């Protein structure tokens, strides 16, 4: 019974909330009135009686608080009250609130976005996979002397390797192979829908524990490798997107790249494959269309599979891996370097956690997570500083409330509630920001990945919530502690302007902000310089004005010879077209691959080599090709119509090759023997500027060019040189000419050389972009911090400034006085930041190009920028201080 009454009361209080508090007030008022009445009846004047009753009652606020504290679920009531109080307080100072919420929103948002990326990259197993911990990804480690460790691990297996491993798998231990989703298209008539298809071996779905939501997965003959069985399983997303989730799609025939496939099933909603990249569809491995050759593709090295294994409980993984390693070493493939030391390793199903070398983007992602954390720390310091300024500004108010009987604990709770409320608002802003930022980060960092699932999910929301709470408490703690223990007498006596200047805590926070910001600025400087250095690398080609056009064909392409003949025709017509400066053909396009054959010098047994052991590579080119791609001749002549089949063999060599083969002598006129030592001399007719062979950053390599007419090869593309103004017109013209030559052609594939190289600059561009963005953010936040702290300090010293000005201090004196203090603080922070940047530099050293991570110019510039921002941010309030009217200031208090 007693319990029931008690709980009933608790509920009653909770339900009535503020009204219950008013009831308590009414009750006590009633009490005082009766008290006063009884005293009046004793013959005292009503006013005195009232006062006496009040005195008898004691500290009303304190007891009211006590009574409230006694009420059940008081804490909840408190929380509500505190939240309402905090909300009112925040609404009273919208400038402060907006600044803090925005700062927190950016700081937390960046981290939430980073979290969602890191979570997907390193933590979360692919969705839809049953018991992902038991699924292991296999890797092969081979000897590679050029690697720092001497070995290279990758998850790239050739089908024969997989077959050998699968053959050793006894009952229980299962393996399956699948390809990275390739880009192909669903075709029907003229329509092409781009899709990503993964080839999988039998048992792939079974091993991952996936069940079809419609139809079936692969069975029977589809599990065998020898004969193609054109069947396909669709992903849920693709099935919904393309077939509107129609269950009768199963059994239909669809065309993948003009070949018919029967849809046999649809994968469950949450399954998108074992990789980060989502696949739209899966077909049996036996539909793999290897390059045509004498041997079936699955016995050659011309394929690439990833392998997963499910290891049952009780099986020792090491034994399985030993067996698998032996199996791999038993594989011999034609023209494939055999490695007797090959080892099979295993790792978690999450690829980024495995032993394979990571993409540079992934490395950058981990560094950026650190950077995001720095941004969060800066934000935290800034918010703490703003709260501190606010709490100090409210010193008198707080002291008054203390004297009125509000307990220290209560005030403490209120201040903390305020900061947590701010953090909650900041967290909400952060999620909005993260929604955009996480998607942008994904696209920026790993654009090739077709992500399954949204960028911001429940885990990210949870992360943002927890982070906001921690930041709220952490940033609110110091100000709350500071404000609730003031010396009441001093605070009350001191009037509006306390003797306060700037607490040590505030200075420490400013120093931390300045230091952390410098680290980010140094990072930005290093990456921007790296990007500029990489871009400045001379590739030897005119990348801005070279255009490559390749005709594309549907199901029945013309023969290679027909294409070659057609292209020659097109080239002849285009070369006389307006806006076209040169047209050419070659066996391989710049930086798209290269060929090599044995070469000899008549008077020497061995050939000189450059540091790079790959030797000289060649390209068969038409006379127009070198001008078309902008390769400069530095000596001799270009090929011409005279260099044709049957005439004297002609060669153009690169500068590096000329220098290595004939040092100190003119190369033109020298003899080079191609293919076989017995062959006649080919004569060097020209020397061309060096060009890059494959990538932007590579060691100098030796190249030579042969006339396409003497070393025929069937070109697939036409290379055109034009200028930027005529680019569009030339593209259209070339497209029309191609269509005329090849009526069966679909849309041609057109590339500007600059565009196809752009992806190679990505790591640096990314680093430069993100570090600069974060650095600018940090700078802004630091500027806000300095500004608000100095403004506050100045507002506290108006009286002092008034006296100084009255005594004859000039504007410059006041500016110096105010700015000096903040510059000292910022300077100290900058110094510490530079020291930290020196220490942290080696973490990004491997990502930089052409600049040391301790580059003095970058360090000095970053320090200077931050100091300047510090000065600028403190000069505005200092200027305000200098314009104080001494009369007003002195009269004010």
């Amino acid at each position, binding site marked *: 019974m007693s*319990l*029931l009454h*008690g709980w009933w009361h608790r509920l009653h209080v909770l339900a009535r909330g503020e009204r219950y508090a008013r*009831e308590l007030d009414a009750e006590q008022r009633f009490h005082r009135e009766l008290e006063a009445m009884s005293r009046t009846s004793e013959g005292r004047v009503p006013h005195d009686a009232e006062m006496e009753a009040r005195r008898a009652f*004691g500290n009303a606020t304190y007891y009211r608080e006590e*009574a409230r504290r*006694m009420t059940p679920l008081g804490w909840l009531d408190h929380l509500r009250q505190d939240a309402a109080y905090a909300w009112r307080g925040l609404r009273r100072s919208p400038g402060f609130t907006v600044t803090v919420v925005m700062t927190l929103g950016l700081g937390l948002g960046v981290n939430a976005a980073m979290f969602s990326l890191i979570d997907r990259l390193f933590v979360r197993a692919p969705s839809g996979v049953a018991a992902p911990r038991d699924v292991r990804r296999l890797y092969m480690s081979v000897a590679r002397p050029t690697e720092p460790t001497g070995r290279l691990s990758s998850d790239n297996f050739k089908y024969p390797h997989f077959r050998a491993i699968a053959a050793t798998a006894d009952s229980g231990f299962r393996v399956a192979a699948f390809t990275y989703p390739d880009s192909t298209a669903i075709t029907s008539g003229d329509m092409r829908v781009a899709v990503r298809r993964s080839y999988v071996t039998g048992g792939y779905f079974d091993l991952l524990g996936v069940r079809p939501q419609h139809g079936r997965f692969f069975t029977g003959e589809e599990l065998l490798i020898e004969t193609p069985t054109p069947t396909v399983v669709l992903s849920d997303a693709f099935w919904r997107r393309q077939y509107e989730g129609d269950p009768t799609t199963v059994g239909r025939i669809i065309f993948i790249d003009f070949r018919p496939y029967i849809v046999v099933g649809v994968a469950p909603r949450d399954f998108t494959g074992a990789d980060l990249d989502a696949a739209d569809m899966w077909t049996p491995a036996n539909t793999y269309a290897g390059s045509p050759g004498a041997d079936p593709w699955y016995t050659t090295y011309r394929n690439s599979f990833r392998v997963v294994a499910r290891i049952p409980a009780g099986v020792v993984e090491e034994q399985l891996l030993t067996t698998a390693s032996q199996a791999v070493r038993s594989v011999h493939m034609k023209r494939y370097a055999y490695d007797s030391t090959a080892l099979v390793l295993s790792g978690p199903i999450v690829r980024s956690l495995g032993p394979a070398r990571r993409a540079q983007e992934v490395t950058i992602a981990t560094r950026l997570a650190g950077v995001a954390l720095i941004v969060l720390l800066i934000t935290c310091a800034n918010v703490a500083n703003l709260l501190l300024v606010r709490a100090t500004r409210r010193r008198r108010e707080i002291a008054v409330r203390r004297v009125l009987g509000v307990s220290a604990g209560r005030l403490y709770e209120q201040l903390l509630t305020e900061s947590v409320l701010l953090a909650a608002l900041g967290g909400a802003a952060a999620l909005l920001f993260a929604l955009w930022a996480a998607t942008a980060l994904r696209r920026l960092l790993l654009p090739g990945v077709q992500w399954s699932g949204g960028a911001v999910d429940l885990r990210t929301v949870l992360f943002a919530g927890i982070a906001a709470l921690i930041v709220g408490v952490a940033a609110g703690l110091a100000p709350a502690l500071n404000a609730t223990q003031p010396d009441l007498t001093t605070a009350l006596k001191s009037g509006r302007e306390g003797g306060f200047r700037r607490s040590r805590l505030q200075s420490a926070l400013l120093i931390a902000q300045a230091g952390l910001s410098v680290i980010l600025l140094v990072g930005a400087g290093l990456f921007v310089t790296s990007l500029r250095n990489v871009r400045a690398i001379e590739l030897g080609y005119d990348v801005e004005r070279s255009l490559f056009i390749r005709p594309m064909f549907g199901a029945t392409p013309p023969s290679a010879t027909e294409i070659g003949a057609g292209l020659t025709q097109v080239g002849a017509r285009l070369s006389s077209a307006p806006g076209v400066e040169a047209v050419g053909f070659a066996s391989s396009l710049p930086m798209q691959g290269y060929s090599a054959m044995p070469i000899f010098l008549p008077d020497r047994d061995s050939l000189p080599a450059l540091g790079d052991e790959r030797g000289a590579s060649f390209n068969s080119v038409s006379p127009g090709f070198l001008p078309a791609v902008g390769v400069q001749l530095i000596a001799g002549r270009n090929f011409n119509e005279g260099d044709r089949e049957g005439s004297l063999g002609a060669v153009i060599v690169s500068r590096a090759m000329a220098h290595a083969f004939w040092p100190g002598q003119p190369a033109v006129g020298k003899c080079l023997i191609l293919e076989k030592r017995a062959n006649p001399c080919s004569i060097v007719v020209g020397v061309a500027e060096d060009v890059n062979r494959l990538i932007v950053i590579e060691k100098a390599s030796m190249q030579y060019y042969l006339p396409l007419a003497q070393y025929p090869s069937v070109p697939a593309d036409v290379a055109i040189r034009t200028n930027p103004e005529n680019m569009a017109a030339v593209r259209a013209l070339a497209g029309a000419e191609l269509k005329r030559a090849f009526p069966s052609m679909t849309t041609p594939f057109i590339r500007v050389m600059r565009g196809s190289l752009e992806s190679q600059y990505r790591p640096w561009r990314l680093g430069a972009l993100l570090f600069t963005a974060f650095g600018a953010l940090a700078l802004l936040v630091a500027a806000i911090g300095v500004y608000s702290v100095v403004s506050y300090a100045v507002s506290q010293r108006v009286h002092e400034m008034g006296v100084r000005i009255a005594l004859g201090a000039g504007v410059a004196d006041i500016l110096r006085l105010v700015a000096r203090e903040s510059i000292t603080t910022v300077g100290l922070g900058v110094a510490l930041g530079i020291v930290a940047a020196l220490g942290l530099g080696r973490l990004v050293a491997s990502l930089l190009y052409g600049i040391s991570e301790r580059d003095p110019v970058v360090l000095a510039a970053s320090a200077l920028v931050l100091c300047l921002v510090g000065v600028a941010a403190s000069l505005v309030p200092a200027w305000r201080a200098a314009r104080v009217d001494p009369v007003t200031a002195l009269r004010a208090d």
Partner: protein
Amino acid sequence: MKSPKSDLLLGTLDMLVLRTLTLGSLHGYAIGQHIARLSDGVLRVEQGSLYPALERLLTKGWVTAKWAETPTKRHARYYTVTAAGRKQLGAKTSDYDRVAAAIARIMGRA
């Protein structure tokens, strides 16, 4: 500003309030008056600690409260002791008797 917080005193105030309420439903002021009158003004319940005590008793379910009209047509909150409250009063009274007797013995008055 420290309120009396020793167990003995707290318990005593609760006991006095519960005992007073066995006379019938009373409002806070009347409770205080009653205690003061019966003790000839020796025990003056500080009104500021009376209401927290009442709130505590409410939470424990030993009393219930209800707004009602006073004979002078004013609104007051009347407290009534519950069955559990009476049981508690019995327990507290015997505790008090034991303690009082013990103190008396120490003071050499028994």
